[in-house]
């Protein structure tokens, strides 16, 4: 469904303020200088990681669904729930998403030593790899996007959703330096994050209603 892909893209865009605060200046700091090709290489690595994760989750979910007729609907409800949690997180009303983040820590701990090797990577391939590692940083935003990749029904679709999500985060990360102060102040403001939170929550409610409606029709 196209509309689910939109959701993934939207989640990436909605996270702009969050991404900007967390990692905005970092990409530049890690890559030594912040020229556009270097930033792009780095972020391409990051998005590649998301895509891989999306493919894995998509494949796994499609396996489960083969054995469950209503599986997609329940997955949709789950995705709606994650979207709701993300909305609450972005708005700063409930930080439950951090529990999910905690799950990602062991993975990161395992990858961290590798990351050190790519410290101030200079060549483009090295930058790309460093970006890929960065993609596995514990991040609630990514995990909720993954719940949508699970809905996609196949590995390729899951990969597509996560790539779209990554694209959504790209403006905030790459165009960081081009944004005027006013735009940056706006993206970082609490008001913007709350607006995005509300939109996510609404989207969650809408998704849930559609899913429940489908359940009603099924039974």
């Amino acid at each position, binding site marked *: 469904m196209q509309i689910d892909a939109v959701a993934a893209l939207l989640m990436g865009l909605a996270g702009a303020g969050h991404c900007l*605060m*967390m*990692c905005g*200046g*970092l990409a530049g*700091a*890690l890559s030594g200088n912040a020229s556009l090709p270097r930033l792009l290489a780095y972020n391409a690595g990051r998005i590649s990681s998301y895509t891989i994760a999306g493919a894995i989750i998509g494949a796994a979910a499609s396996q489960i669904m083969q054995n469950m007729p209503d599986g997609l609907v329940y997955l949709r409800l789950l995705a709606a729930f994650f979207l709701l949690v993300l909305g609450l997180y972005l708005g*700063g009303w409930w*930080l439950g998403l*951090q529990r999910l*983040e*905690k799950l*990602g*820590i062991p993975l*990161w701990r395992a990858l*961290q030593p590798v*990351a*050190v090797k790519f*410290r*101030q990577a200079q060549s483009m391939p090295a930058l790309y790899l460093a970006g890929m590692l960065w993609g596995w*940083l*514990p*991040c*609630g935003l990514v995990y909720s996007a993954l719940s949508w990749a699970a809905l996609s029904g196949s590995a390729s679709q899951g990969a597509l959703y996560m790539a779209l999500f990554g694209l959504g985060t790209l403006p905030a990360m790459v165009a960081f330096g081009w944004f*005027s*102060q*006013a735009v*940056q*102040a*706006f993206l*970082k*403001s*609490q*008001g*913007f994050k*709350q*607006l995005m939170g509300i939109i996510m929550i*609404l989207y969650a*409610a*809408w998704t849930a*209603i*559609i899913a429940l*409606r489908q359940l009603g029709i099924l039974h």
Partner: protein
Amino acid sequence: MSKVLPEAPPGLCFHCLQPLPDDGGYQVVIADQQRPVCCYGCQAVAETIAQQNLLHFYQYRDTSNPLAIPLVPEELQQLSAYDDEQLQQQFTRTHDDQSRSMTLSVEGMTCSACAWLIEQHLARIAGVVQAQVNATTERVHITWVPAQVKLSTLLQAIAQLGYRALPFQSATQEQDFKRKRRYFINRLGVAGLATMQVMMIAVALYFGVLSEFDENLKQFMWWISLLFATPVLLYSAQPFYLSALRSIQAQRPNMDVPVSIALLGAYGASAYATITHQGEVYFESVAMFTFFLLVGRYLELLAKQKALSAAANLIKLLPAVADREGADGEIETVPVSQLHPGDVIRVLSGHTLPADGTLLDGTALVNESVLTGESRPVQKHRGETMLAGSINQQQTARLQVTAIQQDTVLASIIALQDLALSRKPKLAQVAERLANQFVVQVLIMAALTFLIWTWIDPAEAFWVTLAVLVATCPCALALAAPTAVTGAIHKLNKSGVLLRNADVLQVLQQVKTVFVDKTGTLTSGEFKLQQSYVAPCSPYASDQLHAITQALEHYSEHPLAQPLRQLTTTKCQVSQVETITGAGLQGIWQNQSVRLGSLAFIQQWHPEYQPHLPQAQVFLASVAGVWAEYQVGDQLRSDAQIGVARLQQAGFKVVMLTGDRLELAQPIAQQLGITEVQANCLPADKLAYVSEAQQQHPVMMIGDGINDGPVLAQADISVTFGHAADLARTAADVVLMRNQFSAVLSFVDIAAKSRTILRQNIIWALVYNVGILPVAMFGLVTPYIAAIGMSVSSLIVLLNSLRLYR
């Protein structure tokens, strides 16, 4: 390697500088120190940064304000030029406590959310005493302590929020106005033209001709509509997006939020339908909604500018140069900014006074209409103050400068007008809060509508929600108060009534009692001898007695003494004169003791004496007998009688409060038709009467700004006559610049009218918004009907307010 890293402000995450969660968040060790972070993500990032030895990332960042990013050096340099002392003198006022204030004009302000943002931001800077942002005039009035903070820092702080602030210069205001008008006219033009085209197509598609269109032609029409609606969305509707974004940033969503959502949503869905060849298109609603909203904004802008330029025009009239008289009597032309108090300047006939000054010639005739609204010329005498902005009517006048530029009375009048415009009256605040709450409710209702309709009929959900957003947008409610208040202030200023506090417009309606001071309020305040009586038994001629009185009065400082110093040309000698406070004067004339003073004072010598003139206040007596009686009084203002009568007609109880004896006050009261008189009042008594009446309902007090200060402060509405020079000192809510009693009536009339309009506006806006909501939620309103409904409701409010400008 251990570096000293700047600490994050308390309560903020060390990594992302966002607020920490309530439980304190998590910890991370950076540079051998425990640091708080807000989440696992930040924890992991911070650890990685430390491990990869990238600590310079933390070292060189500004932790004071996560949003602050330094300006480019050139801009900084430009701003720091304003720290120059000499430059600052031209547009700042220095106060007694070493603080300084000035007015900045701010570009890029779109709504009250902007004002709030700037106010909050400035108020946090140490050294800022007060920052008042006026969204109407797009000006910031700021008071700061130069020793603590530099002006350039303040300008920079505003720049950080994305606004450009520069010292307000009235000379450029007209240009700004023009630019602003062009901004809207361009967008209106585009929206208007596009709306016509799109509407034509829409009408053709909706009615009649529909069946004759084949599917391809319909597609073509949709694409044409898309083509016309795009510039409307991208160009014409810009002001709404900007304002919506600002308000979101300030966490106070305003009505432009639902407007923007509706516009973008309707356009997006219509464009999607056009591209996919299915569904519905509402391009005509997008264009029409934008057009009508812009018309509303444009009219609002015009009204605002009209109110503002009235004040701005005053300043524009001031000449930039002055003819200064040198020590050798030679005339040199200098810029007004180089004048100093004490300089002597010449003003030619027909020219405008460039500065305040005292008249050095015998008399002069000036027109003070810009200051007072009174168009008849006023006669000035030597030593009297002449005001910048008034026009010299007769021969060349010489004056000694007392104040220039920001210190002139004219400047303080303009400052007062600005102040009144910037202070929102309570009702306007209530209306604004209501509108803001309404916006939130509209958004919630729209969300609910969407979700409920998704359950009922997903295909309709989107358009029904859109109709709810458009139809219930509280534009009318948001316009209701500000337009009416701006109109009222404009009208009052035009009639020479200065408002310090626009709240009184609201309070006036509850006022039942008007306390009026006698001297200087009902009367002109200029004392004259009204009647004198010479006792027939007196051994001296009346001329001789007047001469004694006159001689004695030269030793007195009592206000009543003034008219008794010019009784006769005959001279006489008195000696050993002493003043007995509260009683009168005693002296020796031709070896006998004489007394001049109150009845009680001479009754000490002549206990049985009863005055022949019942209203005489001053008596002349020797030990042998009472020789003369004088009645000194001031003239009633010519329009006092009709003024009082009209106040009574309007339903006010008029009470006279005076320090004079009842015998003196009563006849005047009778003449004016005032039935209740409180005579013999000390200031404390006046205060007591006013507070007693206040137990029942709010009261209005009209009095002398200086002497009645405490009573005026006590009253709910205080009205005073602007003795121009004391303008800065008066604390009254309403200052009447026209020195006529009937000026009170202009105030009362305009206040009543503006209140009526305000009430009509708010009631209408509420009725419309509350009424349309359920209709729209039931899906009975199509988007274009919603657009028409909303637009018409706000235009009605605007046009109603514009009545005040007539």
